């Protein structure tokens, strides 16, 4: 057993932390949360230059050929910094699907562009909700000569306003799991992208497809394997999100401990009060339990082991734990934490947004129950 990051992973985290501290101050994070675009080109290009956008991909496409643990290490730091930009959509969500394609031409075209940041991709699967079950996919891809016509409605599609192409999961046959994934040019006629206004400022959109023409060579994964790929990457995306949540929780705890030591009432720092100390320890208990469930799940992803249950355990706990941590932190911070100027709300908004997307505690406990054979 080994519960620690290795030296290289620690160096990566240290590098990324310093990078965000320098290039991504909270003023920028807050600005991006409220701006419709939510993308700062300068930061994006610098992330690409450092190779962060290509971490997972093969070297021959300009990637870093790192493992899933390195990805998790990087993402933990993005959560700590609450770094804006479409990296989660592009390199994680779409990237994990692209890594599974056997469409070599598409791979050779898209992956280098994802690594360099030149192209931003995203993945559109969910419709009714954000939990992705094959039976709820109604968007259809119908054969029309050499092309497909895609019709349907996708919800909560991250960064769709920036993305091109959008990887879309669509029904190509009558069987429940006959789902294909297509790379849809987002400028195609028949696409309508409507940005949503989310609690965290995370950029999500409704994307409507009305007989959108997609050439057959834009098929990322055929219908015989499409849903298997989605099922394979879904827990990985969930763990990736958990890694961000760990970073976010850790930052909130740091912020809270520092504030409690500085803030004086009744002539003493409020950290001298046992109730404040115990709140902080409650936060640490939540963080540490979430941390090791997440790390084990990330390790399983890294090793290619089955991980549906582990990913869901991690997300079930992270979802609830981040909320509890944020709420306790607000209580300890008092009025200052309720101001726009202070940084805490950035984290508590993401705690709520990330709780409710990619499956909340109830959703993931339902999966855990299933995995327990109930």
């Amino acid at each position, binding site marked *: 057993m080994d519960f620690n990051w290795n030296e290289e992973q620690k160096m990566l985290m240290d590098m990324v932390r310093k990078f965000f501290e320098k290039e991504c101050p909270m003023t920028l994070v807050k600005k991006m949360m409220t701006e419709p675009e939510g993308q700062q080109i300068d930061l994006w290009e610098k992330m690409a230059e450092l190779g962060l956008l290509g971490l997972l991909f093969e070297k021959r496409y300009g990637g870093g050929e790192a493992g899933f643990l390195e990805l998790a290490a990087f993402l933990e730091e993005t959560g700590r910094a609450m770094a804006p930009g479409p990296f989660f959509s592009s390199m994680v969500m779409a990237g994990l699907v692209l890594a599974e394609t056997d469409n070599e031409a598409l791979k050779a075209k898209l992956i280098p562009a994802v690594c360099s940041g030149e192209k931003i991709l995203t993945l559109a699967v969910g419709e009714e909700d954000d939990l992705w079950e094959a039976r709820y996919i109604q968007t259809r891809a119908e054969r029309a000569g050499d092309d497909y016509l895609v019709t349907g409605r996708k919800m909560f599609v991250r960064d769709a306003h920036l993305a091109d192409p959008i990887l879309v999961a669509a029904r190509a046959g009558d069987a429940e799991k006959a789902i294909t994934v297509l790379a849809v040019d987002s400028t195609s006629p028949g696409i309508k992208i409507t940005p949503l206004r989310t609690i965290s400022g995370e950029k999500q959109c409704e994307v409507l497809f009305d007989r959108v023409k997609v050439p057959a060579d834009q098929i990322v994964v055929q219908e015989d394997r499409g849903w298997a790929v989605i099922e394979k990457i879904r827990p990985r995306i969930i763990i990736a999100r958990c890694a961000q949540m760990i970073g976010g929780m850790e930052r909130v705890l740091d912020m809270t401990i520092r504030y409690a030591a500085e803030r004086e009432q009744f002539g003493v720092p409020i950290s001298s009060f*046992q109730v404040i100390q115990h709140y902080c320890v409650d936060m640490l*208990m939540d963080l540490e339990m979430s941390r090791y469930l997440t790390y084990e799940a990330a390790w399983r992803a890294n090793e290619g082991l089955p991980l549906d249950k582990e990913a869901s*355990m991690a997300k079930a706990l992270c979802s609830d734990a981040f909320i509890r941590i944020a709420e306790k932190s607000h209580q300890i911070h008092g009025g200052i934490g309720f101001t726009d100027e202070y940084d805490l709300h950035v984290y508590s908004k993401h705690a709520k947004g990330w709780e409710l997307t990619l499956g909340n505690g109830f959703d993931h406990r*339902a999966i855990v*129950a299933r995995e327990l054979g109930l």
Partner: protein
Amino acid sequence: MEFDFTPEQKKFREEVREFLQSQIEVGVIVDRSNRGFDFNSSFSKKIAERGWIGMSWPKKFGGQERSFVDRTILMDECLKVNAPMGIHFMGDRQIGPALILYGTDEQRAEFLPKILRGEASFCLLFSEPGAGSDLVAVRTTAVEDGDSYVINGQKVWNSNAHYAEYGWLLARTDPDTPQKHKGCSEFILDMKSPGVTIRPLINAVGLHSFNEVFLEDVRVPKSRLVGQVNRGFYQIMEQMDYERAGLERLMQDYPLYKHLLQYVKETHRQGKPLSEDPQVRDQIAGLEVEFQAGHLLCYRIAWLIDQGQLPGYEAALCKACCTRFKQRLAETATRIMGPYGQLMPGSPYAPWNGEAPETYLWSRSYTLQGGTTEILKNIVARRGLQIASAG
């Protein structure tokens, strides 16, 4: 990171499992919650014969220098079926390591082989009526007299004192120092010594598990003083880090967890299995999440010890998380069983002969013994988060 066990560790786990299975078949293990600390001398001897006591101790003291992760694997399997470890548990976990750290050569020669043979049982004589969370307030005195110390005082909450051969005693050797934590020492006490009176306390479960121990002019040879005079409190605090770290804080009721999973699958309410009720599924999955997180934290403590680190706040944090799970398990199990969840052992229709409500009653003690959750949180705040302490 590496969350897998080595092939040797997996093989070891299998070996332990097979042995325990054989003990279930002959009825030595009853696979019921809260039976893991029953005294069973033949079982402890069998464990000893296999070299499973003191396995992580140094070789020169009769151990095998195996890792704490290995020891945790052994505990994991024993706790899953609540094998009766009462006799050897305390010596293996706590007394042996403490003697290795602080004991004299004579003490080691006398006690370690006996512990390793599964024959030495110990109870702890720490708490007093006026010294609970504030352990340093102990008033029991140990006064030098020739080649002995003479002990006077009263101890309380002493689990298994009515079975144990020896007591591990904390007493005041310097009554005058204003710094109370610098005036205590540790002793090994023969529980059969003249002047030792053990009075049973019946706990809220209705069982005799712990006791009051009265000490009246009890003579303890000086050779039974452990470690340095007046350093006893510090020594205990260090041992506590080991005491708190184990899987027993998580899995003392593991049989109930297994039985609960079986119960919801087999029990029908309103025409369908309880396991199809979304609330039941949610509650049990919530338990599983907490259990697996606690399980990882325990193995992490073992791993930290293997890395040469003394778990301090980590062990306190781990115990706080694990005991919370154990309490939630009993709360959830009784609630899911509904009116059947109140049927105690011996009652007709009691699922698993009342294991759930019995465990529920036991579970009040889990967040008290070995440091209350509140004391643990103080430790974590001070040592883990470096938050200024009050006053």
